């Protein structure tokens, strides 16, 4: 592994995670005037929100705000972004952190103009992880036309390497370097914002709900991609088994959440998410029947307005009842939901063409904890910051977009205070 020039910024802030919270923390701190290093594990910024079709409750496009944020980054010389970057080690203390960051080779350098020639000639396809494997990209790809940085990446796992090198020949700008190796970046920074985000709860663990077994049982995050114009179906909600439009769809709330066997806590955003997704369905085909199976609808604050609005949409039914089981009819691939309608006090058995599981939020810190004195709760959420290291976003608790942005803003301040404190204390 090679080393690239190290960074010495004792008054600088390292932000780990380029999703909504991390990006916000980085930009907000830089706009105060601090030097910021933003590292992101994937090839592009935007994190989970980049995969979202629309935000609740305004039903506006995430890229609208991302465009502003990307521009704030592009025009701010105090922010340096490293993609495909992972923290390997953190040592030291508040005001004096030594961080080693591993940079995974992109195989594409800054010469890239995003002209697409490499992808045109690339002979290898890979499942598109950005779209949860619902379609494919070439080994050389751009995850979205809205991607930032606007720079291709080559998937080293599937690239045929020097033997093929068709892309190398096709690129007129010497932007492709198949010999690129992993590098270590050493940096000294004063404080750290941790914003590594979340991942959806693994729905295959919900045996009774059929995800992974039945193609037409999908999750809420997949639904976002199906509805997205840059998604695998260009925004048409089609069921995976046969690509047909659905005439009936069920949303199963608390799929694995508020459940002692899975995630005991509430994931906070899934009620609003499903209410929102029911509008995706209704906007595309008003006659489609939508049922939402829930325990409590948690539409806090003025989000209640959106709950009221969705309840008024004809053909959207809210059923209070926990879904016990989902079964598939092998012939039609339709799904039968078994639930208890507690409001009507009877057992329900109802068939749907597609089912969306509202799976919950698992903090990335449940698995990967960074060295330091952060305090975690039983679920792996960060329960308390440590001097010099500040958490933001869904690693603190399940949070919606606004809350994550607020959190990122707060963390920027905390990181700044840490530097100021050191300055005044000598």
């Amino acid at each position, binding site marked *: 592994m090679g080393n690239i020039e190290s960074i010495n910024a004792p008054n600088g802030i390292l932000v780990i995670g380029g999703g909504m919270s991390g990006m916000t923390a980085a930009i*907000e701190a830089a*706009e105060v*005037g601090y030097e910021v290093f933003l590292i992101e594990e994937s090839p592009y910024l935007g994190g989970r929100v980049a995969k979202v*079709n629309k935000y*609740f409750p*305004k*039903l*506006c*496009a995430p*890229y*609208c*705000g*991302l*465009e*502003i944020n990307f*521009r*704030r980054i592009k025009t*701010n010389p105090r922010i340096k972004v490293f993609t495909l970057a992972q923290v390997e080690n953190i040592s030291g203390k508040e005001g004096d952190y030594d961080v080693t960051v591993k940079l995974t080779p992109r195989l594409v350098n800054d*010469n890239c*103009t*995003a002209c697409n020639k490499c992808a045109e000639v690339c002979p290898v396809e890979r499942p598109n992880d950005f779209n949860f494997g619902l379609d494919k990209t070439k080994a050389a790809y*751009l995850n979205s*036309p*809205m991607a930032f940085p*606007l720079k291709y990446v080559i998937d080293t796992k599937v690239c045929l390497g020097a033997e093929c090198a068709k892309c190398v020949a096709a690129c007129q*700008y010497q932007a492709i370097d198949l010999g690129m190796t992993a590098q270590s970046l050493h940096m000294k920074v004063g404080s750290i914002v941790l914003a590594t985000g979340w991942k959806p709860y693994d729905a295959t663990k919900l045996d009774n709900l059929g995800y992974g077994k039945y193609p037409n049982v999908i999750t809420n995050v997949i639904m976002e991609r199906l509805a997205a*114009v*840059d998604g695998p179906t260009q925004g048409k909600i089609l069921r995976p088994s046969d690509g047909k439009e659905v005439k009936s769809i069920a949303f199963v709330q608390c799929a694995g959440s508020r459940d002692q066997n899975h995630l*005991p*806590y*509430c*994931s*906070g955003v899934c009620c609003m998410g499903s209410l929102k997704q029911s509008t995706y369905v209704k906007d595309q085909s008003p006659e489609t029947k939508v049922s939402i199976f829930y325990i*409590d609808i*948690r539409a*806090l*604050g*003025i989000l*209640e307005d959106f709950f009221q609005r969705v309840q008024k949409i004809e053909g959207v039914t809210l059923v209070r009842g926990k879904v016990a089981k989902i079964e598939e009819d092998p012939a039609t691939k339709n799904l039968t939901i078994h639930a208890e309608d*507690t*409001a009507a006090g009877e057992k329900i058995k109802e068939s749907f063409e597609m089912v969306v599981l509202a799976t919950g939020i698992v903090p990335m810190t449940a698995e990967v904890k960074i060295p330091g004195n952060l305090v975690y*709760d*039983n*679920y792996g959420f960060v*329960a*308390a910051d440590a001097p010099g290291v500040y958490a933001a976003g869904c690693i603190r608790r*399940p949070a919606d*977009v*606004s*809350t994550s*942005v*607020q959190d990122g*803003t707060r963390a920027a*301040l*905390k990181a*700044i*205070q840490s530097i*100021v*404190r050191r*300055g005044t204390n000598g």
Partner: protein
Amino acid sequence: MAKKLGVYICGGCGIADALDMDKLCGVAAKEFKVENCKTHPFLCGAEGAKLIAQDIKDGTNTVVIAACSPRAKMDVFSYDAPVYMERVNLREHVIWVHPPKDEDTQMLAEDYLRMGLAKAQKAEAPEPFSETIDKTILVVGGGIAGMTSALEAAEAGYNVCLVEKELALGGWMAKLHKQYPKHPPYRELEDTGVDAKIKQVEGNPKIKVLTGAEIEKIEGAPGMYNVSVKQKGASTSLKVGSIVQATGFKPYDPGKLEYLGYGKYKDVITNVQMEEMAQKGKITRPSDGKEVTSVAFIQCAGQRDPAHLPYCSAFCCMASLKQALYVTGQNPDAQVYIFYKDMRTPGQYEDFYKRVQEEPGVFLAKSDVKNISEEGGKVTVEVYDVLLGEDIAVSVDLLVLAAGIVSNSMPEATPTVEMVTAEGEKRVTEIAPDSGRYATSALHLQYRQGPELPTLKYGFPDSHFICFPYETRRTGIYAAGCVRQPEDIAASMDDAAGAALKAIQCVEQTARGQAVHPRTWDRSYPSLFMQRCTQCKRCTEECPFGMYNEDDKFNPLPNPTRCRRCAICMGSCPERIISFKDYSVDIISSMLKAIEVPEPDEEKPRVVAFLCENDAYPALDMAGINRISYNPWIRVIPVRCLGSVNIVWIADSLSKGIDGILMIGCKRGDDYTCHFVKGSELANTRMGKVQETLQRLVLESERIRVEELSISEFRKLPQIFDEFMETIKRIGPNPYKEM
């Protein structure tokens, strides 16, 4: 400074294959007399960048780069003032979406170069507005949100002045007996810690605390506010740079909850009264002072109810669960009933919900309340239990109503204004919530557009934007805590810290002469050619951020540090006197005039499309990245906001012989996405008037169309273009073409 232009045309990404590069250079050299026009096969590469850098060193001060979208390669093509740079989008908007070596494609590229050159000849790199900036932060409100903002700002090294109207700090938090758990395992009640917090604030040398004090007035603008505070009958004046408004909430008027027995039965109280009792030490019945052995809670009392508060107050579920433990803590044999609609305990709060469910004697039921009555000294609550599917009734010693909260910005009654109509008739009109004259007094801003922060629904001076919760309609003034939205202590503290950061950031950006969100890179600011001002008041009324004050003769008085650089005032001005160094009515008019309009018999109509640079313009780039082709007769001009489009540009276009005008901006209406709030709406209103004028001139109103587009609708945008072109073909050429 004399302009010394350098034009650099990139041939990369297929540009040189699709276009006649010599002819393009000819446009610069012959039509614009540019001496220095260079082409390069890979302009964004090291060599290309060096080429430009060398020319700048040699005195070039205006750089026109005809290559990819201005949104791409910003890191390579970036020059400090006084160098002005203009980008011409030959890639995404020309060669990726139109056939190569084609007459129309070439004409499009040449027009874009002409437009870029016309702009570059007139625009200059802005010099930042500079003024002595005071960086003190004013925090209004000394509850938990205000105290947190003050402390957080102070700990970041800023001086703070905290103004609280009560005699003591603490706000509602000081009235709580305990708070529900904020720490794992989220099962036990916690002390509020309010006393320690107050001490911390009062002991912080950077925080000046003024209690029993109210804001008399705030004059000025970010970085230079003059604040008068009235305390004990005397006025103090302060200089501050930015403001956090954390003026909190009031409980919903329980007098309106008579339908739940409040005011009718003595033993029906609110959750606020319950706290008071618990804090005093004993939970008793108001009617006879006896300790309670059974208590019922009704959740959403006057909430989620269109007749009362339509919204949810976010923390009442958790608060009642907490209060249930007060009761069982006092008497382990007590019975507690909590009747709720939806139990709202998000995130890890679910653990506390479970904890209370385990508590002996606590019974929770999802239910619809049917009747409250009093009999034999007990309050009887009758509900339909949704889970059991049957009616139940309980008789209790005490009924607690979990009533909600109202923002302190929400006026008691909708304020009105008396207007005199043209006919001399007096008319009383209600003031809209998004006006600076709606909210209850707190800041007393000396602003032309009113003394307070405009509010959204229900009186909350909240941000409208999901992705920018600290967006504000009054630059440098940020709302935090329950004045802004219903939130609990933990959320208020996070909110307050974020607001403190934004307040700090505002003074720092202002000190650098830069705008605050969203155009944080922008150093331009408007200048007004006052000799031609007709005091029409459009700029002072239409600025969404209240930038302008007025003197007594209705002259606009700009406050540059309040400006967000949207240029909506520039769009509003009929005299065209408002300009930015790099964006003015004249600059865009010059671009329009630079377009070559073919003779009618050539049958190549021309359309100008004004595109919002944050959404529609990137969407068109993405159409380019996806190689989605569309009509090549359209000339795109990016605008800061659709609201900055001055109608003179429409006149210029039509008199030039342009056949149609498209304006594509963000969504307007209740769920608007316009980042300058009113821009899209104003553009639409103005164009409606233009269309009327056109009809009077016997010109087809369809020649002008305003469209809404989201950034992600990049597949729809080419369709809009093509459909509009069909319309133009159908109605035929602009008759002014022949004149």
